[in-house]
């Protein structure tokens, strides 16, 4: 496996502001917001729970569910942004194929990096007492970060909030995903 630079495909991500300006579909944003699809049987209001954000692992991306067009407009934004992504490079494809093999074989999460370290040690690119760094291969975390941005999973996932339980009075960390991202996975 050849050596690669540390540069990833981050420059390929699109600019939201320019995309916003060119999208004529965004006229939907100014459409009538009075539409109400609320079924008559679902008008009971639930009490809010006292929450405190602990660590938002993926900030932003919270959907505005009061706007019935928000989901569609968000999807159109993503489609426009996806046009600016370059095709996957050969090295990225190699790394993805290896991750797929490991995933299908139910290997543990750290196996990818272990295999890479073994590979570069055995072929002499790295001394046996050293570990291969990101100069030598795409680390799993870096590859996942790239893929998350590519497939719009970089926002809206893994919100961590603490709530206080009313009976036990203990703090519980709650990990949730944005509702829209959960069912409209790109």
């Amino acid at each position, binding site marked *: 496996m050849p050596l690669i630079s540390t540069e990833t495909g981050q420059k390929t991500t699109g600019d939201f502001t320019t995309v916003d300006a060119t999208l004529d579909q965004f006229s939907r944003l100014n459409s009538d917001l009075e539409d109400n699809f609320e079924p008559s049987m679902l008008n009971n209001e639930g009490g809010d729970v006292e929450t405190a954000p602990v660590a938002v692992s993926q900030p932003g991306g919270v959907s505005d569910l009061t706007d019935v067009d928000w989901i569609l407009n968000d999807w159109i934004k993503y489609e426009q942004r996806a046009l600016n992504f370059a095709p996957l490079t050969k090295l990225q494809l190699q790394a993805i194929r290896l991750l797929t093999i490991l995933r299908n074989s139910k290997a543990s999460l750290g196996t990818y990096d272990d295999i890479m370290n073994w590979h570069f040690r055995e072929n002499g690119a790295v001394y046996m007492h050293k570990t291969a760094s990101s100069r030598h291969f795409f680390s799993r975390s870096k590859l996942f970060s790239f893929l998350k941005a590519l497939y719009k999973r970089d926002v809206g996932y893994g919100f961590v909030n603490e709530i206080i339980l009313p009976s036990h009075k203990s703090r*519980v960390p709650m990990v949730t995903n944005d509702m829209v991202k959960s069912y409209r996975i790109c």
Partner: protein
Amino acid sequence: MLTRPENKGKHHIYSDHNPFKRPLKDLDHVSDANTGKCYGETYDELITDPTTQALCEFQTAADGTHLGQFSCYELTQMQIALGCLSREAREKDCNWGTLGWIPNIPKNKSQGRRSFVESGHADSTRLRAQLIHDEGLIGVAGSVHPAQDLHVMISFVLKGLVQLQKTGFTWDLMHNGRLYKGVKMIPFVSFLRVDTKEADPFCSKYLNQNKHIKHLCRECHCPTDQSNNHLANDKAKTQNQIVTLVL
């Protein structure tokens, strides 16, 4: 899930391949989610304009898992899938989205700290201040039933889904090579797929199942001593009756 390239036309179960059409009323069989009584009656209730509105069924599931053989920590995952997908499509992992995770209640840690504070020991002064900061006022607990804790967590995870049901959403629906623009999707949740271990606390049913329990059944008022009567036709428990237990 609405945009998954793996889902082709054959994976959708729209009646006559038309997302706006109501399933036939005189069906003599049940084949998939949209041929049941639930879907048809909900369609009649919610769809007011069949030319622009489409019923969007959500199926939810919850299943708990231990994180390890030697771990007491348990997580229950809440997931949703689209009811417009066929049963074969819903069996695929990629067609299920995760709303959140419900942890088990770490009552041991809190109860231990609380017991120490309530003992009035001189060394507990600092811990008392910390406990008040972490968990609110001490001494006011007890007015809320412990079963409420689970339902507070469930309501927190399902908050977005409830909001989406209230408002609906607009979508450009692609089906069988045809694009339906500006379809107003009317979501509804048909059922929650759970094991008995999760279903009992979700319905606020007693977890022990001995003779002192009035009803063993979660769904009807069948008395415990009649539970072995498979011909029993007792009154079903209603949503309101369950709500009075959990809210």
